[in-house]
């Protein structure tokens, strides 16, 4: 019987990784939910736009490293490259909006036409990403690898079980919280944020009050560009960059947005953590945890893993199905900002 060790194991292998992954999903889902509430369509290019933004950050990182600008050996250089990525992505998304989506807005096309158009953008973005950086995995993490390592932790506490906090995970959690706070402050406290919420609630009423729709749409794309670059870079720092992985994030991100309630920013954040914790909790091997808690002769023989890791999509899907069946509007009754 050793509850402390059990807790340490779970924190090390489940809670910290799931919290980091959940933060990445939440940032992604925030972008999806924002586009849904302002532009009113499901943005299928989100994963690939994220990959493209991360690619820009990676190239900038390499550029910075080659001219000797780094994070001082402590922070990853990629953090310095994020602003460049955001600027490029704002340009990219605004050009896409002007060339593609604006026309459909003007003719008041059906939502699914917008979705189709986002498929086209997805193809092009995906092609560009693969053309520029290829399909293989890239790691661009530098600086200090750990906030504290397993050995540090053992020295401090004298426990046999180890606990490590990787810098990428730490940075992810801190950045995500900061970004979310800033976004919620913007949406609830500033005039621009309020106009966005008004537009999302009732388009006609917002127009009557003199809100310029094109300006709201532009602001939405600017915020989305920042969110995708930050989320993508954090995910890449944490797990490495491969374009296909970003495409596959589409399902958990949409699931997070729907679980929380499409159009509800708080819902997107909560949904991100719900999806991440269930995905990792169900595919986690609980043997070490139980062997610490139970007496030795009752220690489990197997892995005590509910599902193999390959089936994490199945968990996401199951959550999605449960929400669709029991509460189709999501936890926070979505549809507006």
């Amino acid at each position, binding site marked *: 019987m050793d509850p402390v060790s059990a807790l340490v194991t779970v924190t090390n292998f489940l809670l910290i990784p799931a919290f980091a992954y959940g933060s990445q999903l939440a940032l992604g889902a925030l972008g999806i939910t924002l586009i849904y509430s302002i532009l009113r369509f*499901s943005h*299928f290019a989100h994963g690939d736009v994220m990959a493209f933004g991360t690619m820009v950050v990676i190239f900038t990182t390499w550029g910075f490293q080659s001219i000797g600008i780094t994070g001082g050996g402590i922070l990853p250089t990629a953090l310095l490259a994020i602003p460049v990525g955001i600027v490029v992505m704002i340009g990219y998304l605004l050009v896409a909006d002007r060339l593609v989506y604006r026309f459909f807005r003007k003719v008041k096309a059906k939502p699914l036409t917008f*979705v*189709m158009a986002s498929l086209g953008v997805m193809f092009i973005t995906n092609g560009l990403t693969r053309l520029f950086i290829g399909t293989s995995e890239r790691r661009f993490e530098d600086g200090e690898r750990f906030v504290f390592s397993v050995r540090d932790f053992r020295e401090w506490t004298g426990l046999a079980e180890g606990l490590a906090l990787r810098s990428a995970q730490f940075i992810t959690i801190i950045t995500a919280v900061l970004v979310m706070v800033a976004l919620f402050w913007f949406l609830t406290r500033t005039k621009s944020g309020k106009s966005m919420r008004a537009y999302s609630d009732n388009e006609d009423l917002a127009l009557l009050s003199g809100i310029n729709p094109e300006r709201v749409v532009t602001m939405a794309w600017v915020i989305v560009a920042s969110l995708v670059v930050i989320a993508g870079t954090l995910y890449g720092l944490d797990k490495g960059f491969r374009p296909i992985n970003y495409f596959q994030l589409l*399902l958990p991100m949409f699931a997070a947005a729907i679980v929380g309630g499409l159009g509800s920013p708080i819902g997107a954040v909560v949904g991100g953590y719900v999806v991440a914790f269930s995905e990792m909790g169900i595919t986690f091997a609980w043997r070490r945890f139980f062997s610490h808690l139970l007496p030795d002769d009752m220690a489990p023989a197997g892995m005590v893993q*509910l599902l193999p890791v390959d089936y994490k999509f*199945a968990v*996401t899907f199951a959550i999605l*199905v449960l929400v669709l069946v029991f509460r*189709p509007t999501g936890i926070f009754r979505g549809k507006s900002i």
Partner: protein
Amino acid sequence: MTVNWRNVGLFGAMALVLVLVAALQSWQLALTILNMSLISAIMALGVNMQWGYAGLFNVGIMGFTAVGGLAVVLIGVPPVTEAWAVGGLGAILGVLLGIATIFGAMIVYQRMAPGRLRGAAIVAVVVVGWIVARYFFAPATQAIQAVNPASEGFLGGLGLPVILAWPVGALFAAAAAWMVGKVSLGLRSDYLAIATLGISEIIIAVLKHERWLARGVNNVTGIPRPVTRPVDLQPQPWVQELAARLGWTVSETAAILSALGYTALFAIVLGALIWLAEKALNSPWGRMMRAIRDNETAARAMGKNVTKRHLNIFILGSAVCGLAGAMMVSLDGQLTPVSYEPLRFTFLIWVMVIVGGSGNNWGSVLGAMAIWFLWVQAEPAGRAFMDFVTSWMHEDSGLRAHLLVQSAHTRLIIMGTALLLMLRFAPRGLIPER
């Protein structure tokens, strides 16, 4: 009935392009393109039923084709008797118990009064069912995978004629579609899209992971084919005689004959499907479907059960995709789960439907042929283009080498551009709906 010369002309142009490929490149290439475009046409037809007739947005085409491909393995491949002996019963019992658990939980949910007790009962059913199912399933699959793992290690199939697998593949896809549709139809249209995206990822994960079923990532190769293989055609005297008369090599002749066999089979299936689809579209049922698509509220006011009709058409369209998936696997003679990529198997089909003209069966067929042709030929074209663009760079420039290696991806950009241009300037497609 008047002949629409414009459409005949478009198909004629497509045929001319294929003949040009045959003349300039090779007959084999032209037939390979033609066979795959016939399969793509069937997939596009299935998607067109969902999108064009009913306005349903399915982004899980990849999953439905893959599950159709699985049927070919389960029907056509001879059974591995040793594996059946060591674990066949346990594996199947485990799967059945897993399904029974889900149904058990559903029954508890329906029969018991809402409350804490019901929640606890559901959790108990799921946990106990799960443990019992695992108890039979895990050792059985381990044993199956241990049987001759280099070439077998799976249960094999029923060893029936492989052509039977085509309708079975359709049935499999229909079952998957029923599950998805039951949950997500009747809600907002985007939800169906996300749900289909999910189910297709799960189907691929199952195919990759469940090695006892179809060898997972180790692929099943050498699946029996419905058409005699070129290798078996070569020794035939009439083939050699034909080769001598045409002045081709024997191997080339045999390959072309075999491919022609597939072309004939696929053309028969496609023809039958188009005939059925056109009949359906022009029947009262087809008019009802279009009425529902164009104005759901009005259709509902007329007493139509919109959700049920949507479920019907969704299952029907997915079944057609499953059929096409089964045909594709029997054309390749192998099932390779890793090769299923959403861009190629889901989104490319969407480009075909939109470019061809949604709502028009002939449009989907033409779109499928044109886009598949572009997809195949855009790869060398992309390389040539990149070679030209980078020709000013130094011969051993790293950037040039990189761009040349990655140039195959330019076809994604071409596809995306084609889709966007069609949506913007010709949203009704090459052959618009009547």
